């Protein structure tokens, strides 16, 4: 069948069973949008800014395991999308971004709305393509989906010049992709797995540390099986929350810069560490020299060889797809007669119990001011711990991670790697489209929310019943916290003057707005929002204690056991 390039793009997306395309039209994608207009197999979600299109597609993927798809025009359409693409890249989220480009003959002539899309996005995509011949279009899109979702996932961009989307050729969607230069592994090396199990069973102070890789590869159930069977303590990174149930007694909390005392101490003091789909980044283990002061054997399972021994030397690397490797581990474990020494493990749990007794997440309650931690605790209660929570970046993000106990994967959606303020609202939109029946709440702050606030308009257009929890402390809270702790209380540009009236703002966009100023009103407001206004978007502006800080905290450059606790101050 002979189709135009624009029609081919649409057919390819249909072949990939795409449900939603998040995008914004413009000059160089007009032929593609024209072809889209004539079909009804997938829906297009018109955002108000291209950054939001990418974030929404990204959260659609994070909350569903499907590939997120977005479409933007050339030039500013692409540059606006870059923040979203870099966000997805840092957290390894599978996306396909279709971008328009000026006509082939104009490329390089500084044409209207021209930019070097392939060049600009190269460092923040898994791969990108410029389509120069309409005959390559279908195969390129097929490759883009394949690359995005296989191996270590990531965003893939396809740049399509306007003339290509108007030229015609025979459409034939390839059934499969063969690339001699790209062959991601799945199975782990069985000899390495055997070595790993021996180390684990001989360990006196074992620890399991898992990250976003467990969520991305849907390995949660296998992880639970393995950890239960071993009886070892487990911690999750910010990206890995929900990979292991937070309410289980073997879970010692999130680790890292704002991790729990017990998680960080156990991580530092363990003698055998099993790292799964995590990358030992600076916010997780802090100073590597300090981390290396204590001898421990490290086993690292990851699909990306370059994640292994990048910041920390690993003793037993296992390259493979996490669920496949965990499957093999469980099978091998059946065949091994040796068991952990129960006395040693009990003594280790005893040690962890003393760390736990610090109760590091306790905070000072107030009957005058709303403590932000309280809002998250109440949010957890009111939603029964069963909501999809998206967040922006800053103090509110850490409190959400600390106080909302995630028992299931794909419920905690945040920008962990890039730390993108403005992520949360479009992410909530994407999560809703992927899970229309789920409760979706955004935990944000008055600074972050203003970075993509225009999306309240998109939410109105598509009637998205998102609940926005705005922890309003009138400061760039995390910046203020660092300035208080490390810059002599000099609050350079962290006070946000002239905030809008968020209630009126929400109403102006056609939503429900609430302002909550008293601690006693927190729960009732949440209940009203989640029950009475179940089908509305409710913007809850919580006026919180301005001085609240996130604890425990490891200062930048410090080691895991050098935490500052709330009680130390």
């Amino acid at each position, binding site marked *: 069948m002979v189709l135009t390039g624009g029609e081919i793009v649409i057919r390819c997306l249909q072949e990939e069973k795409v449900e939603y395309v998040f995008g914004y039209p413009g000059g160089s994608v007009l032929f593609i949008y024209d072809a889209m207009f004539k079909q009804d197999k997938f829906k297009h979600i018109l955002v108000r800014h291209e950054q939001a299109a990418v974030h929404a597609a990204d959260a659609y993927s994070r909350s569903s395991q499907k590939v997120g798809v977005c479409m933007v025009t050339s030039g500013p359409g692409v540059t606006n999308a870059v923040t979203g693409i870099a966000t997805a890249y840092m957290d390894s989220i599978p996306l396909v971004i279709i971008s328009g480009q000026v006509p082939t003959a104009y490329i390089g002539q500084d044409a209207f709305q021209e930019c070097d899309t392939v060049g600009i996005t190269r460092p923040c995509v898994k791969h990108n393509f*410029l389509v120069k011949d309409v005959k390559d279009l279908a195969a390129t899109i097929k490759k883009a989906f394949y690359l995005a979702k296989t191996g270590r996932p990531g965003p893939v961009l396809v740049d399509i010049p306007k003339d290509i989307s108007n030229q015609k050729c025979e459409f034939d969607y390839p059934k499969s992709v063969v690339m001699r*230069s790209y062959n991601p592994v799945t199975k782990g090396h069985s000899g390495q797995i055997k070595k790993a199990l021996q180390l684990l069973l001989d360990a006196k102070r074992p620890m399991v540390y898992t990250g976003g890789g467990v969520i991305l590869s849907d390995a949660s159930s296998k992880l639970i099986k393995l950890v239960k069977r071993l009886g070892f303590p487990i911690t999750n990174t910010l990206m890995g929350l929900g990979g292991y149930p937070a309410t289980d007694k073997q879970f010692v909390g999130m680790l890292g810069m704002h991790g729990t005392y017990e998680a960080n101490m156990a991580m530092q003091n363990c003698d055998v560490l099993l790292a799964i789909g995590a990358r030992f980044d600076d916010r997780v283990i802090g100073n590597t020299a300090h981390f290396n002061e204590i001898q421990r054997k490290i086993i690292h399972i990851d699909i990306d*060889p370059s994640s*292994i*021994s*990048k910041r920390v030397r690993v003793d037993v690397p296992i390259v493979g797809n996490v669920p496949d490797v965990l499957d093999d581990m469980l099978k091998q474990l059946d065949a091994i007669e040796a068991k952990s020494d129960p006395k040693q493990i009990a003594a280790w749990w005893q040690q962890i119990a003393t760390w736990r007794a610090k109760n590091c997440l306790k905070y000072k309650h107030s009957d005058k001011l709303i403590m932000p931690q309280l809002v998250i605790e109440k949010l957890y209660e009111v939603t029964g711990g069963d909501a999809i929570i998206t967040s922006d970046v800053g103090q509110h993000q850490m409190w959400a991670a600390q106080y909302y106990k995630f028992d299931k994967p794909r419920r905690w959606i945040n920008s962990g790697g890039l730390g993108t303020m403005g992520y949360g609202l479009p992410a909530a939109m994407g999560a809703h489209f992927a899970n229309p029946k789920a409760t979706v709440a955004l935990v944000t702050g008055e600074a972050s929310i203003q970075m993509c606030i225009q999306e309240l308009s998109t939410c109105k257009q598509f009637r998205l019943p998102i609940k926005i929890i705005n922890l309003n402390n009138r400061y760039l809270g995390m910046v203020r916290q660092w300035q208080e702790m490390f810059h002599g209380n000099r609050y350079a540009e962290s006070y946000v003057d002239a905030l809008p009236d968020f209630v009126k703002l929400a109403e102006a966009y056609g939503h429900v707005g609430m302002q909550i100023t008293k601690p006693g009103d927190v729960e009732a407001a949440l209940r009203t929002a989640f029950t009475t206004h179940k089908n509305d978007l409710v913007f809850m502006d919580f006026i919180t204690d301005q001085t609240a800080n996130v604890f425990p905290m490891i200062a930048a450059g410090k080691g895991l056991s050098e935490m500052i606790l709330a009680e130390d101050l």
Partner: protein
Amino acid sequence: MRHIISILLENEAGALSRVSGLFSARAYNIESLTVAPTEDASLSRMTIVSVGSDDVIEQITKQLNKLIEVVKVVDLSEAPHVERELMLVKVRATGKDREEMKRVADIFRGRIIDVTESAYVIELTGNNAKLDAFLEAIGSALILETVRTGVCGIGRGDRILKV
């Protein structure tokens, strides 16, 4: 430590910038980089000379392997190999220097490939050290212009980098 990394990659537009972009983005060192198509026109062979600790070189090879268009990566310096670089040097060749230049070129097994009344262009191949030694032997006062290709290398014997 100095390493010679050999890469086989798809001969496609933009592949070179993916490699060079990787080095600058991750603050890896490039001493030299050469690239040209192989006997199979769909593939290019690239040789990069880099300096770094073993950990850094390990990361470099892993990161290179991660690039979609890279087919194979080998650290040639891990095993016996040969390396060569081509250099063209334009030198002043007048008066008594004229004879001397010819003699030095002969000693280094260089060839004079262009002659004018006042200058020679000398072609020389060898490893880094040999080319450096030649330049030193001539002395900077007489060198008008130097062009070096950067190192290309190949494994000895049965070590073959091929698809």
